[in-house]
């Protein structure tokens, strides 16, 4: 039931012309940013040509994450304008989770473990194993990133429903 309410709120907000334009413009650009970012992350640097070698998983998640993130931003703006509670932390968390692929191949992990290795040589040797797990299961982090966005969308729509009496009143009427 709550899920339907959430979906209804999302569709009603997106149905408003101002928010629809914002959503369309931003979702195209955010998806494009993800399309560039996801394949280039393993280099730890901006390599535009990497787009040519992106995997189907990366294409799908670039589109999904771009659209969900913009949907959340749009709903947050709507909620803020109404004076309802909104979520500022979730998009940041999701973006960070989607960037985890950078940990597979860049010197981040060997450098951090190298610093910690001063305390224990065992930690120092963990580096390839950790990088391998980030390499092998990068899609799990993409999934996690998308899940954070879906959860945040649900929370924001609930907040809008609580904040705007019409939504709940209408819902109660329908229940009777």
């Amino acid at each position, binding site marked *: 039931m709550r899920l339907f309410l959430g979906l209804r709120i999302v569709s009603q907000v997106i149905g408003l012309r101002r928010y629809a334009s914002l959503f369309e413009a931003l979702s195209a650009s955010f998806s494009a940013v993800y399309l560039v970012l996801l394949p280039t992350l393993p280099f*730890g640097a901006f390599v535009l040509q990497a787009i040519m070698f992106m995997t189907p998983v990366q294409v799908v998640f670039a589109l999904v994450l771009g659209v969900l993130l913009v949907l959340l931003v749009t709903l947050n703006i709507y909620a803020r304008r109404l004076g309802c509670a909104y979520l500022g*932390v979730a998009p940041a968390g999701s973006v960070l989770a989607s960037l985890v692929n950078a940990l597979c191949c860049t010197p981040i992990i060997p450098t951090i473990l190298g610093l910690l290795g001063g305390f224990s040589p065992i930690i120092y040797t963990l580096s390839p194993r950790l990088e391998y797990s980030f390499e092998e299961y990068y899609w799990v982090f993409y999934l996690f990133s998308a899940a954070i966005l879906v959860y945040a969308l649900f929370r924001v729509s609930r907040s809008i429903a609580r904040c705007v009496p019409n939504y709940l009143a209408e819902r109660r009427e329908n229940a009777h």
Partner: protein
Amino acid sequence: MPTKKEMKRQARQAKRRRRRTLLASGVVAAFALAVILLYVHSGGNASTAGGGTQTERFTGFPLTLLNGTTINTTTLKGHPFVLWFVTTWCSSCIESQQLLASEYYPALHSKGILIVEVENYDDLGENGPTVLQYTQKYGGLNQPGWLIGTAPEWVTQKYNPDEYLDIFYLVNQAGQIVGENEGLGAYLGSIIQDFSAA
């Protein structure tokens, strides 16, 4: 006038907001630290570590090529070359391999720059395709001036002691190491200039 219950609720909400802000700041700070570490580590410039002033001598090692023959890399003296240590399961290596094969190899080859590609010993202890499967899939097989193979463990220990997945060195005609960095793909566009600058 807010009731006691409302005040309590507001206090709880404020506490929750503070906790969230703290958590977000922590995550952002950790990420920023990682980026700074990465930047500091890479020296912030292209492939010539230490601004191209490093002139360690390349002492060579035996390299077993994909056709089974073993060569001594000291015989490459007289040619500039890129000495590249790869791990076959690493995505930056895969992308670099594809970039090199499709875009940069012809330019490097025409300038007489060789590519010496060595698998990190035993793929750094993790399961990956063999170098042959890797090159068959991503390019570089049977290309003149592109030597691909494996080397003994001490070679990885010597040239890649921190066990980076994707590390490379630039060795000039005189057999001096004039640059090194991680993630070859990010530097392919500047390697010819880096050799000239060095």
